């Protein structure tokens, strides 16, 4: 073999030019320098992380306590940390895009067209697959088993595999900043633009493999959640006694099981086109790109309900807890959730009204789309009635829920506009659409996930989050959203197309500047979220709630210590009614020692999950750069790990009864000693997690 032959074998298509530093050196334009700076941040961040962990000698701790853990609570927390990191990156990209549009009016602005296209592609892909999905998966992972009185998920090992597949996808996204370039095809990656003939570079391949990893990970998550809910509810926890969050988790899981495969098929067939020269979506040779569009939205529309349903679940819990009232219309909320889940499979075509089908078909899907507004409206009324005559406490999660109700209804109205095919012919592909879906995604999904984070944080870590900073953050999220996105409705109605890198009408300038200010406020919201976390950790000793029920809430998750012991429940509770814990504490049933303390069996930690996940990520990298030996090697590692794990018999460990008893009695003593807190003072240091209740 000749020299270049060997290098090509070893490094595939990689070359110096793939590094943004080299590109910026050769062509020091603002756009390239920004790219190099972003890459530098990733590299420096990774190095800094490495140094800090080494400096404090935390590698062993991280590895054995977190990375290989099969505890659903730790896996949930890791998902949410991932979501936080990715949210930061995607939000910075959003600010950059808003800056670009505000300054690029009859000027070239700060980033070039290619760079701008990468920005909206990574922003969209990250926000959906590596921010929203991990965030909601993390919340469900953490909370749902506690709510149904289970000790873990049905498949703890699969849970770990799913986490690390998602992390690998996110790592691919980060690596694409440093090595090569990302796709310019948007978060939806439509061919033929993403086909080899138009886009020969590694960008679409990064997109394909990152999304595929996330999609397979989410399929495993869906199977796990559904099976847990079907099979592992505590005795007496009938379907209609489950907390509403569990219902939304179930519907989301079912949607994941049925809606992730279309995405996997879409990305893999696109890969077949790109890697094996096939003709699924090419121009000519019998290819048909409409198949891709149908596949993608067959996933894409259910996906938006995968995203929003868990948020609905959070609102139901939060509003009921902070209104001191039972959830109004529980049954109708359950039916509405299920109806939304079913209907979500019947509307995908509204994403491409303009792509050539007949008016009748468009009318059908337009009407189907509007139908979804009905169950959603039912929910809004239920939440309002839950608050009605309740003792509403305006904690940050509650503020987010109230902001959600108003914002979401607004977004629903613009959704009805877009669901009307003749109107959609005017608005599609404009900033009106961008405003609409951010209205749903920020005002619906993100508020909900943040509310859930703030609501359950004390459960997970044993201390409350600082409420003052929470309020600041909420104000910024809400104000920033309206500033950033209301102008986009105007601009879209005036005809400004989405994904536009340079703008030629100076009349748009004032609106774009307002939108930029809004994006900056949203960035401030994120910063204040981090400040809140920092301040709360700093003051944690003043804000501990070890008894575990800081909000006088209702579900079983509040009936145990905060943070919960790794076995969750000393004895599996028996459930006699809805809002199980609420009634139990009012009938002297809470904070009781067990009759008998027994040994508890828990899954043993394993490194197999992280090995499989990371090997899949490296395999993806090898595929992106055509480094075949790397891809094949990693695939072999995955197969070998799966097989070897099948021979492992020593997969559980026993927590001795004595230890369970000691931990439990210590907690019971804390509960005994704690001062019950009335609702008015729940946001003060007095709150030790023991609620004072009337009647």
């Amino acid at each position: 073999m000749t020299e270049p032959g060997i290098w090509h074998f070893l490094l595939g298509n990689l070359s110096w030019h793939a590094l943004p530093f080299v590109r910026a050196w050769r062509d020091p334009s603002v756009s390239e320098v920004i790219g190099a700076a972003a890459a530098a941040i990733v590299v420096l961040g990774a190095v800094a992380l490495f140094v800090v962990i080494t400096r404090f000698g935390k590698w062993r701790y991280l590895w054995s306590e977190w990375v290989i853990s099969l505890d659903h609570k730790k896996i949930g927390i890791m998902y949410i940390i991932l979501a936080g990191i990715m949210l930061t990156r995607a939000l910075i990209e959003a600010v950059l895009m808003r800056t670009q549009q505000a300054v690029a009016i009859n000027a070239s602005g700060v980033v070039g067209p290619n760079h701008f296209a990468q920005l909206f592609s990574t922003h969209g892909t990250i926000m959906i697959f590596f921010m929203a999905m991990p965030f909601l998966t993390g919340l469900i992972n953490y909370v749902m088993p506690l709510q149904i009185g289970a000790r873990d998920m049905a498949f703890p090992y699969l849970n770990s595999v799913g986490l690390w597949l998602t992390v690998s996808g996110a790592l691919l996204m980060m690596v694409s900043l440093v090595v090569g370039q990302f796709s310019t095809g948007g978060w939806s990656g439509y061919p033929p633009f993403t086909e080899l003939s138009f886009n020969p570079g590694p960008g679409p391949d990064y997109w394909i493999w990152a999304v595929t990893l996330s999609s397979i990970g989410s399929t495993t998550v869906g199977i796990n959640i559904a099976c847990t809910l079907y099979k592992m509810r505590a005795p007496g926890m009938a379907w209609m006694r489950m907390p509403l969050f569990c219902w939304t988790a179930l519907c989301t899981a079912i949607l994941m099981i049925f809606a992730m495969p279309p995405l996997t098929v879409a990305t893999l067939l696109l890969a077949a086109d790109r890697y094996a020269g096939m003709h699924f979506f090419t121009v000519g040779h019998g290819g048909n790109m409409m198949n891709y569009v149908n596949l993608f939205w067959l996933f894409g529309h259910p996906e938006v309900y995968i995203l929003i349903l868990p948020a609905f679940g959070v609102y139901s819990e939060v509003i009921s807890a902070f209104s001191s009232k039972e959830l109004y219309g529980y049954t109708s909320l359950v039916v509405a959730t299920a109806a939304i889940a079913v209907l979500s499979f019947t509307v995908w075509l509204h994403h491409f009204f303009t792509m050539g089908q007949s008016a009748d078909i468009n009318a059908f899907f337009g009407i189907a789309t509007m139908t979804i507004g009905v169950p959603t409206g039912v929910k809004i009324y239920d939440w309002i009635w839950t608050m009605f005559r309740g003792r509403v406490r305006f904690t940050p999660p509650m503020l987010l829920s109230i902001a959600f109700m108003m914002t979401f209804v607004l977004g629903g109205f613009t959704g009805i506009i877009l669901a009307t095919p003749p109107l959609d012919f005017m608005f599609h592909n404009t900033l009106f659409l961008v405003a609409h879906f951010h209205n749903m995604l920020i005002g619906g999904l993100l508020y909900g996930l943040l509310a859930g984070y703030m609501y359950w944080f004390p459960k997970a870590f044993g201390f409350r989050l600082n409420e003052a900073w929470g309020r600041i953050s909420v104000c910024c999220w809400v104000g920033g959203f309206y500033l950033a996105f209301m102008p986009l409705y105007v601009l879209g109605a005036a005809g400004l197309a989405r994904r536009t890198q340079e703008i030629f009408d100076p009349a748009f300038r004032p609106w774009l500047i307002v939108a930029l200010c809004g994006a900056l406020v949203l960035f401030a919201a994120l910063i204040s979220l981090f400040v809140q976390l920092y301040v709360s950790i700093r003051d944690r000793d003043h804000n501990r709630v070890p008894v575990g029920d800081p909000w006088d809430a209702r579900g079983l998750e509040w009936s145990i210590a905060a943070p919960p012991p790794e076995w969750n429940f000393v004895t599996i509770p028996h459930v006699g009614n809805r809002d199980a814990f609420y009634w139990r504490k009012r009938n002297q049933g809470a904070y009781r020692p067990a009759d008998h303390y027994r040994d508890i069996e828990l899954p043993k930690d394993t490194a197999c999950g992280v090995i499989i996940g990371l090997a899949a990520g490296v395999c993806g990298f090898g595929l992106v750069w055509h480094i075949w030996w790397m891809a094949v090697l990693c695939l072999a590692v995955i197969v070998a790990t799966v097989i070897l794990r099948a021979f492992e018999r020593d997969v559980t460990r026993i927590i001795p009864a004595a230890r369970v008893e000691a931990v439990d009695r210590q907690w019971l003593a804390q509960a005994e000693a704690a001062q019950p807190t009335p609702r008015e003072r729940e946001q003060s240091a007095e709150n030790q997690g023991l609620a004072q209740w009337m009647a």
Partner: protein
Amino acid sequence: MDGLGMRRRHPGLNLPDDPDHIREQDENDVFGFWIFLMSDAVLFALLFAIYGTMLRGTAGAPGPAQIFKIGPAFIETMLLLSSTFTFGMASIALKRDARNKRLVFWLVATLLLGLGFLGMEINDFAGMVAQHATPERSGFLSAFFVLVGMHGLHVSIGSLWMVVMLVQLATIGRDHKVEINLIRLSLFWHFLDIVWIAIFSVVYLQGLLR
């Protein structure tokens, strides 16, 4: 009363009817696998749909009538169908016979039939390639190779799984986990058989009728 107990037992659990023999995790393991199969069924359904829309996308390359041969496809069908029968016998042995001999016999028979199927399928594909009917010639050929190839890939994974199970039976013996995995493998295998019936009727028979 709503609760644990026999009512929650999953129907597909083909284990000796001894309540002590069933653990709660078994329920999950088998039920979870059913859910996975549903997801996998969606994957095949979509590939069928794609194939259906690509029938006319032959772009001048060979079409169904030129490349399909009913003879081998029929033999392949028979091989898979009898492998489903032999796996059924293996399942009976798993439930009724505590010794491994019969179980191993039927598993090996299934494996051989599966490998025979794969061999014939590869031979088919090679024949098509020799006719210059390769997947990069047309949308139709891409869809055909990916649909049928995806099934073949599943059968290969199932065969590898069966080898692993045979090794486990030899080394570990028939413990609980092995039993549960055999039940899951049997579900997988029968599922692949059903998919093949669809391929045989939708792809081969329909293609040759035209």
